[in-house]
C-alpha cells in the first residue's frame, strides 16, 4: 500500500520552503512557515501510526487497555505535535504582531523594503 501521508508531508515541506524563498510579501512568508510546520506535523503523526500485520491501531487511551484487541498508536508523536502546534501559534501571533508594526513603520508589506539595517 502506498503511504500517501508521507508523500503529502514531503510535498508540504517542499512547497513551504519554495514559498519561503520565492515570495516577497511578509504575510505569505508567515504562511510559508506555517505550511512547513504542518508538513512536519503530518510526518510526525504518520510516523506514529503504523499498520503492522494488517491491524489498524487505535487511539492511545490507557484506561481499560487490557480489553483492547488491536495495537495502539505511539502517544509520543501526538504529544510532540500538540506541543509543536501550540508553539506554532505563538510564533504565528508574534509574527503577525511584528508584521503589523512593520506596516506602520514602512507602509508596505514587501520584505525587500526591510533593508535599512546594513553594514
Amino acid at each position, binding site marked *: 500500500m502506498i503511504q500517501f501521508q508521507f508523500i503529502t508531508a514531503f510535498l508540504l*515541506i517542499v512547497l513551504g520552503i519554495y514559498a*519561503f524563498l520565492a515570495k516577497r510579501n*511578509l504575510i505569505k*512568508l508567515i504562511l510559508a*512557515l506555517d505550511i*512547513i*510546520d504542518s508538513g*512536519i506535523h503530518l*510526518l*510526525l503523526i504518520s*510516523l506514529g501510526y503504523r499498520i503492522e500485520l494488517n491491524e489498524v491501531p487505535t487511539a492511545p487511551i490507557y484506561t481499560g487497555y487490557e480489553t483492547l484487541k488491536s495495537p495502539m498508536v*505511539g502517544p*509520543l*508523536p501526538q*504529544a*510532540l505535535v500538540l*506541543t*509543536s502546534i501550540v*508553539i506554532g501559534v*505563538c*510564533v504565528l501571533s*508574534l*509574527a503577525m504582531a*511584528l*508584521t503589523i*508594526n*512593520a506596516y506602520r*513603520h*514602512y507602509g508596505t508589506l514587501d520584505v525587500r523594503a*526591510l533593508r*535599512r*539595517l546594513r*553594514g
Partner: protein
Amino acid sequence: MNGEAILPYLIIIPLFGAFSMPIVSLIGRKAREAWAVIISGATLAVASALFYSVWEDRGIIVYTLGAKSPLGQGVSFPIRIVWEVDLFGAIMVLMVALVSFLAVVYSLGYMKHDTGLDKYYTLIIVLELGMLGIAITGDLFNFYVFLEIMSIASYALVAFRNDTWEGIEAGIKYMFVGSIASSFILLGIALLYGQYGTLTMSYLAVKLAQNPTVTAKVALALFIAGLLFKSGASPVHMWLADAHPAAPSSISAMLSGLVIKVGGVYALARLLFSIYSPLAYKALRAYGYPYINMNTVGWAIIIFACLTLIIGNAMAVIQTDMKRLLAYSSVGQIGYILLGLGIGLAAYGSHTGEVALAGAIYHTFNHALMKALLFLIAGVVIHELGTRDLNELSGLAKTMPKTTFAFLIGAAAIIGMPPLNGFASKWLIYESSAIFNPILGAIAIIGTAFCTAAYVRVLYTFFGRPSERVMKAKDPEASMLWPIIILAVAIVIMGLFPWQISEKVMLPAAKALEDQLAYISAVLGGA
C-alpha cells in the same frame, strides 16, 4: 549537597517568577523590580549550588519527571522525560544564571524610561528559563520545547522597542531565520523518532550505535544546519549583526553572551558527543560495522569555524556602530568556540582533542562574561549620550573614566591579553589547533589580529580628544555600574588563576562531554 533534590527548582523558580510577574506588577514599580531581582537571584543561588554539587562529586545528576526511575514499568527502556546534568551542562547553567542576574539588575536603571516593563521582566526571565532548560535536558522533545521557549522570548525582546523601525526590522529578520532553523531541528527530531522510536538522548545513542542508518545522517545534517543558524556561524550570520544591536543593551548582553552559545554551540556539542558519538564511530569502524563518520563531521565544523572567525572579526573592523561592532565580534568569537569543538570531534581520543574541547568550553564561559560586559558598557554609553556612532564618541575617557576602564578590561580580555581570562581559553584553542593542523592555528591567529584591530580602534576613539558631545556625560547610576564592576572583577579574578580553572573545571568538563558511556549509563543504569 544533594544535586538531584535542587535540580527541579532551577526551572520552577523562574517559571513561577515569570508568570507571577504581571500580578506582582499590580502592586507597583518597586515591587516589580524587587521581584525580578529576587527571582533571578534565587535562580543564581540554585545554579551555584547545582554547579558545586556536580563539580564536587564529578557525577551526572539524573532527574526523572513524575517517577523515581526513567525506565517504564516492566520494560527496559526509558519512557519518561529525564533531565541530565554533567559538568559541561552545570557550567552552562552557572553561566546563564550569572549573566541573566546581572542583566536584570542592569535593567533596573537602563530600562527606567521604557513602558511595558512587566512584559519585559516576564520575557527576560522566560528567556533565562529556556536556556536553563536546554542546558539540563536529556530528552530531545524537551529540548525542542525549551529551545522554542528561548527563541520566542528572544524574538519578542529584540523587537521590544516597537516604536522604532530598527527593532521591528531586526525582530522580523531574526524571527524568520530562527523559525526556519527551528523547523529544521524539528524535522531532524521527527526523522530520528521515525527511525528509532525514542527521543531520550541516552537511549537514542544506544540505538544509533547499534544501527546507524541514512535517515540518521540526514537528521544529523538537519540538526547541524539548524544549530549553526542559531549560533550565528558564517555564512548565515547576517541576522545576528542586525538583531543583537537592535535589542535593548541588557538583552544584547544576554543574546550575545548566552543565547547563541546555549541554543547553538552547547546543543550542537551535546548532539555530536552524547547522541552521535565519535566513540561509537571509532569502535564500529574498528570492527567493520556500518558507522557515521564523525571525523568528516568534525572537519565540516572546522571549515565553518574558520570562515566564521575570519569573516566575523574582519567585519568588526569596519563598523562605525559600536554595538554592531560588538555583534560582529561575537560572530568571530563563536568561530573560536566552533573551532575548538570541531577539533575536539576530529581528534577525538587524543590529548589534543581534549584540550581543544576544554578550550572551547572555557572560551564559552569567558566570552559570556566579556561580551556581556562590553554590551552593558555600550548600553551605558547609549543611555548617557544617546548615540552609539563611534565617530561621535571621541574622548569618552575624560568624562566616563570608570566605564572606559571597564571597557579597556573587556577589550583586553577578548583580544586575549595575558593577565585576563580570555588569554587562557584562547591559548588552549591556539595550542590544540596548531598541534592538530598548523594552518588552522595560523587562521586562528589571523582572526585575533582582526579582533585586535577592531577593539584598538574603539579604544583609540575613547582616549582621543574630547568632542563637545561627550562633555555632558558622566558615569552611570549604581544599578548600572555594579553589574559592570562585578563582570570586570570576575574577568580579572578568573584571569589570575587561568591554569587552575582549566585543570579543575574545564578539562573535567571536556572529559565529561567526551565520556558518552557515563552519560548513557546514568540513565539506563541497571537496564
